[in-house]
């Protein structure tokens, strides 16, 4: 199939501008040799040829949105460090584990030097004196490729003391996790890096840029975010913002999985590509499998409220997706066709978040677990109508008020915009409820059908005294 490479399973190239996946076509894209032959470390050279604050300004003016989930601009984030407090650290979030998401893994496996160069540019611009590159524990190949790339980069003088013979010196330390989704939350990541259980920290402080690793100012950036920097340094903010829209410039990687003809990871144009393009155009997924009808899709990773065909024309732009009742999150679309058992599909996600709760906040620890139990009961045909109300009651104790959801013309409901209010420190608890709420709001009749069809005796009738 055109645009697919045997050496990069899952990635589909296409004929669009490429910022972070430009080397994926080469089988040896992960080697220093290939990297140097394709403009490698030239962005770093360009950056070091300017004062650090100028580099920072360039990144700020390019509005490089964070690609980890929250979409916070990297340049702004770097500016949140308190004046005059040193040392400052960079922690790279490569703990990619949001259901449906994988782009960071590909970037680490296929182009580790690009990530390393991005880390160096960030450290230079924001005055960060040591970098910790935290890779998810289960990603053996990514760890190997990044380790080998770091070894080569150190030997060649791109990392470590007096980089390229300059006064810029920084170590990049490869660190790896051991299996815990919640560690993707930036304060949990820092806890884990300090050798502790990976539990999110109480907020405030809201940003580890103020108080982070070892209590020092710490920038936590996603792998894909940093991978944008070499290109940006080489081509400038103007070229960067010429791609995409003003509020969402550049490209982003999106993984589309589930019931489409060509599931894959695509580098799309930020702010412009719509979900309809992505799901139906030939250059992307080429429609729903077997000519089936689309039932629903998760637009931004397992934590995101669901969309249906009513939202297909939403583009990959944060505010648009937010107003429509969801988020773009980590760039992961999961597609369900008409054959999907919606309550069962929601359960696979709720089970995930219930399992991954760190246990620190009661609404998440207890609420997530009960959502899973009650939903399992309903899916197994053993639920009652009261269970459906109970699901919403438990969800409301995690996220008070109206939970965001999409509009639906057929059902005559309008959208509740993102974000939600939450009674938990981090987003794991709300994420357990998001699929339940979406499924119940948009497909309540499927839940009711499972209850109508139940053939067990109602619990209240068992053992009645008379």
């Amino acid at each position, binding site marked *: 199939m055109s645009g697919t490479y045997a050496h990069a399973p899952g990635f589909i190239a296409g004929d669009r501008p490429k910022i972070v996946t430009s080397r994926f076509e080469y089988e040896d894209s992960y080697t220093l040799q290939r990297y140097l032959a394709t403009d490698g470390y030239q962005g770093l050279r360009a950056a070091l040829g300017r004062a650090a604050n100028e580099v920072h300004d360039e990144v700020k003016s390019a509005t490089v949105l964070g690609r980890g989930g929250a979409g916070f601009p990297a340049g702004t984030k770097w500016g949140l460090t308190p004046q005059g407090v040193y040392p400052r650290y960079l922690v790279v979030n490569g703990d990619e584990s949001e259901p449906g998401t994988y782009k960071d893994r590909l970037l680490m496996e296929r182009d580790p030097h690009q990530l390393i160069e991005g880390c160096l540019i960030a450290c230079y611009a924001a005055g960060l004196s040591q970098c910790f590159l935290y890779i998810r524990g*289960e990603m053996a190949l990514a760890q190997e490729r990044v380790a080998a790339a770091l070894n080569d980069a150190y030997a060649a003088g791109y990392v470590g003391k007096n980089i390229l013979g300059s006064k810029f010196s920084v170590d990049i330390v490869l660190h790896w996790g051991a*299996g815990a989704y919640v560690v993707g939350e930036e304060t949990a990541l820092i806890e884990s890096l300090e050798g502790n259980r990976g539990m999110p920290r109480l907020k405030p402080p809201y940003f580890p840029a103020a108080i982070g690793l070892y209590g020092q100012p710490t920038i936590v950036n996603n792998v894909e975010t940093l991978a944008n920097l070499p290109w940006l340094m080489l081509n400038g903010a103007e070229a960067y913002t010429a791609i995409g829209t003003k509020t969402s410039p550049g490209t982003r990687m999106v993984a589309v999985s589930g019931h489409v003809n060509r599931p894959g990871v695509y580098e799309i144009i930020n702010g412009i590509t719509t979900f309809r393009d992505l799901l139906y155009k030939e250059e992307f997924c080429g429609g729903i499998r077997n000519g089936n009808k689309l039932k629903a899709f998760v637009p931004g990773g397992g934590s995101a409220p669901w969309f249906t065909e009513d939202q297909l024309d939403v583009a990959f732009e944060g505010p648009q997706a937010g107003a429509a009742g969801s988020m773009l999150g980590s760039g992961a679309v999961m597609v369900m066709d008409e054959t999907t058992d919606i309550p069962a599909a929601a359960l696979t996600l709720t089970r995930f978040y219930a399992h991954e709760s760190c246990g620190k906040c009661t609404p998440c620890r207890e609420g997530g677990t009960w959502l899973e139990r009650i939903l399992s009961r309903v899916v197994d045909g053993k639920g009652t109508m009261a269970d459906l109300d109970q699901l919403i009651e438990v969800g409301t104790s995690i996220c008070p008020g109206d939970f965001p959801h999409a509009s639906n013309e057929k059902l005559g409901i309008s959208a509740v915009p993102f974000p939600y209010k939450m009674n938990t420190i981090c987003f794991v608890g709300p994420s357990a409820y998001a699929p339940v709420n979406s499924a119940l709001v948009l497909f309540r009749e499927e839940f009711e059908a499972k209850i109508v069809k139940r053939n067990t005796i109602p619990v209240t009738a068992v053992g009645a005294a008379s």
Partner: protein
Amino acid sequence: MARLTEDNVRLAKEIIGRYPRPRSATIPLLHLAQQQDGYVTNDAMVHIGELVGATSAEVYGTASFYEMFKFEPVGKYLVNICGTMSCALMGSEELMHHAEHKLGVKAGGTTSDGMFTLEHAECQAACTEAPCLQVNYRYRFRVTPESFDSLIDDLSAGRLTSEIPDHGTVAKVRQHIPADRGVGAVPPESVTEAPAWLDGKAAL
């Protein structure tokens, strides 16, 4: 039941030396212990505590949070079948049933010959290639019952030993920072000044 070997202590000290605080090396050292013994032994946790300046209870406290650390022996090959949404939509439940039948154990169990431990896993970041699984954290994509059977047969016959190391080893390549190239880590309290390159001038 083993403390870290002499070679591994040397490696452990090299790893500890990269961090401003030794305790940051806890998880990497737990991986090292698991690589040595196939699982994390009590003695290893005591030893790691000595190396990073923590009690063995603190080390266990950290270790027990993370899915990958095992505290009793598992099979030579840990087979993790993903069951989260994308894989579930593409038939991972059927694959799990098939795997349980083929290996003769339920999810969570180990075959009597000690070769395989079967586990239900959460999202493994290969969602477009569903259903997927990992054997000792090495991927297999778009797995069918037939390809699962031949994978198990290959593993049993020792045909994949060069690709897939025994359980405990994750990455086969380690980072090494050459002494003459590394900046070195110092405790944060010993740094008070801005880095040299923040002088308002270009570094090059």
